[in-house]
């Protein structure tokens, strides 16, 4: 199947979510509101630095490298998404300029932002799977569970990451850092792994692609 490239994603990280990413969620943290204010002030600047892009391709099981994690799947979607490199460059720059906290906030925002992009791309692919009459699995990334980090090479063999500005280093790390690669298996039968769906877990309540509550 053909390669699909998308660049229309909605990224909107709330200060509360960043408080969680920064590890400051605990109730007795006295400066929570102060930090939220700092975050709020930076958000418009941060958003200018985010350039979300995604790429995916749906392949038949026969086109895979027969890794056991593809077993029983009829088709497999492989995907890469990113928010580009501008934000992480600015974050590093801020840290070099002795603005450590601001730099950390920029980085944390980027981490949440790319998660949101992955969440939306996941929804688009899962919807397509359903339209094709399949049952999509949740998304899984190399380096987690039984899918080794080295399998990044397979994703990048199937997908031209450079089309969205993402390259794979020899250490299997993606550049820009704020990028996520994943797979979704398409099955003939419903899959149930006993966990909440990613949409239900996703904090982005107003996401246009949100499917479940």
């Amino acid at each position, binding site marked *: 199947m053909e390669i699909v490239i998308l660049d229309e994603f909605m990224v909107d990280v709330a200060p509360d979510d960043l408080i969680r990413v920064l*590890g*400051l969620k605990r109730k007795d943290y006295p*400066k929570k509101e102060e930090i939220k204010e700092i975050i709020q002030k930076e958000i418009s600047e941060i958003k200018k630095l985010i350039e979300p892009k995604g790429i995916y391709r749906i392949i038949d099981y026969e086109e895979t490298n027969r890794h056991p994690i593809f077993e029983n799947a009829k088709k497999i979607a492989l995907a890469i998404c990113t928010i580009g490199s501008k934000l992480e460059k600015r974050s590093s720059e801020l*840290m070099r300029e002795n603005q450590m906290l601001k730099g950390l906030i920029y980085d944390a925002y980027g981490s949440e932002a790319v998660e949101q992009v992955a969440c939306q791309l996941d929804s688009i692919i899962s919807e397509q799977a359903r339209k094709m009459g399949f049952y999509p699995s949740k998304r899984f990334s190399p380096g987690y569970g039984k899918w080794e980090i080295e399998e990044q090479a397979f994703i990048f063999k199937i997908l031209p990451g450079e089309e969205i500005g993402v390259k794979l*280093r020899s250490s*299997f790390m993606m550049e820009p*850092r704020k990028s996520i690669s994943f797979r979704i298996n398409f099955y003939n039968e419903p899959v149930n792994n006993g966990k909440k769906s990613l949409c239900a877990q996703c904090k982005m309540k107003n996401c246009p692609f949100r499917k479940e509550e």
Partner: protein
Amino acid sequence: MRIEDLFEQMKKSIINGNKEEAERLAREAINKGLDLNEVINKGYVPGIQEVGRLWEEGEYFLPELLTSAECMKSAMSILEPELVKSGDKRKTEGKVIIGTVEGDIHDIGKNLVAAMLTANGFEVIDLGADVPLNMFVDKALEEQANIICLSALLTTTMIGQKKVVDMLKEKSLKGKIKVMVGGAPVTKEWAERIEADGYGENAMEAVKVAKNLMSR
């Protein structure tokens, strides 16, 4: 104003994360012709030490640590050139070469460690991210550094930390230049296995470990 009161104000400026105040007091110390090493050691250093204590007690969190480290760096950037001008230099806790190992482009954690080491009196030479492994050893020799800090954020790049330890062994520098390792997948067990001299789970822990290594 008594000099002790000025020192107290300096300490508070660091604890409260007040950059403007920390800078203002540094300029005041210069204008008054005070002994700047004394200013650093009796005014600012007790401030960052107190911040470390508050962190350990769970009163301070990462934002406070970072803001205080920023203040410390700002004050030092005013005081240190003056020290140099007068033919003196800041008495440091030790010289550290820090970087993220080859193949790894993560730098946030490494930056946090570098900032906290700097704030706590270490002279830190930050080589950045994706640093060729031999550069750590070459730079440490060139700068006569005491410690090399190696950051790795992936299981695939952690091996670089071991390679640097091995390089030091080959050059009979093991023990002379100490190695500290850190990063998300790095554990105390890994540090022991590769025979690193220290492991820091977080930036403040790294400061403790570094000070400990210097006192050995």
